[in-house]
């Protein structure tokens, strides 16, 4: 078993990010797109924590802490927006949500 280096963690982080990107491109339900965005945020967090370990730099973990906090607030606001959108339009599929004006 080879030694795990920083590059392995960055590879996994990149894979997770690209899966999230593929989800954003391929899926049509706005909730699934939102989940994929969360996955991309998590991938960025993983690379930050990996850098924090390999550079012995704890400040990166503080940044991850803030990212998680902001992501939680963002999820609450975003889901409220989706619910408000659903009330008006009656759907969450992106191809039916083509206008900015409600």
């Amino acid at each position, binding site marked *: 078993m080879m030694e795990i280096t*920083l590059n392995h963690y960055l590879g*996994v982080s*990149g894979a997770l990010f690209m899966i999230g990107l593929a989800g954003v491109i*391929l899926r049509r339900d706005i909730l699934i797109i939102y989940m994929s965005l969360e996955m991309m945020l998590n991938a960025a967090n993983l690379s930050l*924590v990996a850098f924090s*370990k390999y550079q012995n730099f704890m400040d990166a973990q503080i940044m991850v*802490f*803030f990212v998680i906090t902001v992501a939680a607030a963002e999820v609450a606001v975003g889901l409220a927006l989706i619910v408000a959108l659903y009330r008006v339009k009656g759907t969450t599929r992106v191809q039916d949500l083509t206008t900015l004006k409600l």
Partner: protein
Amino acid sequence: MEAILFWIFSLGMIVAGIGVVLSRNPVASALSLAVSIVFLALMYGFCLNAWFLMVIQVAVYAGAVMVLFLFIIMLLDIKEEEKRTRGRFYSLMGSALALFLMAQFIAVLLSTEPVKAAVTAGGPVNDDAHVIGTLLFTKYLLPFEITSILLLVAAVGVVLLSLKRESSS
């Protein structure tokens, strides 16, 4: 030991992540995302020694965020996507774009020197909660306080957004 755990966690994380994208049922997608997040949290703890972030990740993401997602899915009663409305060409190009970026990323990683762990510099941090707490309340006190305002704004915003406006005119 760390290597075995790393491969187990990363494999589980990526398989669950692919499950999020591929499963037709939104509830299955949300549960796959929860599994992926839990694997990520385990990787934080057991591979990267970030135990505090592991707890935070499980509590905030797998706890709060995923419950919120599932709640909204149940509330809106979203059906499974009945048929493919995206064309085959579109899906092909989307996957190709992601795969191309991934290949480029891996090529960059392979062409650089692998970074080994900084073994001796300060030794392994075992009391990371202590270090994070100290940093958070000294060096990063102002961002911490601003975060509390952000959370307040988010709470007020959510209440405003989800209010039914009565007889608007």
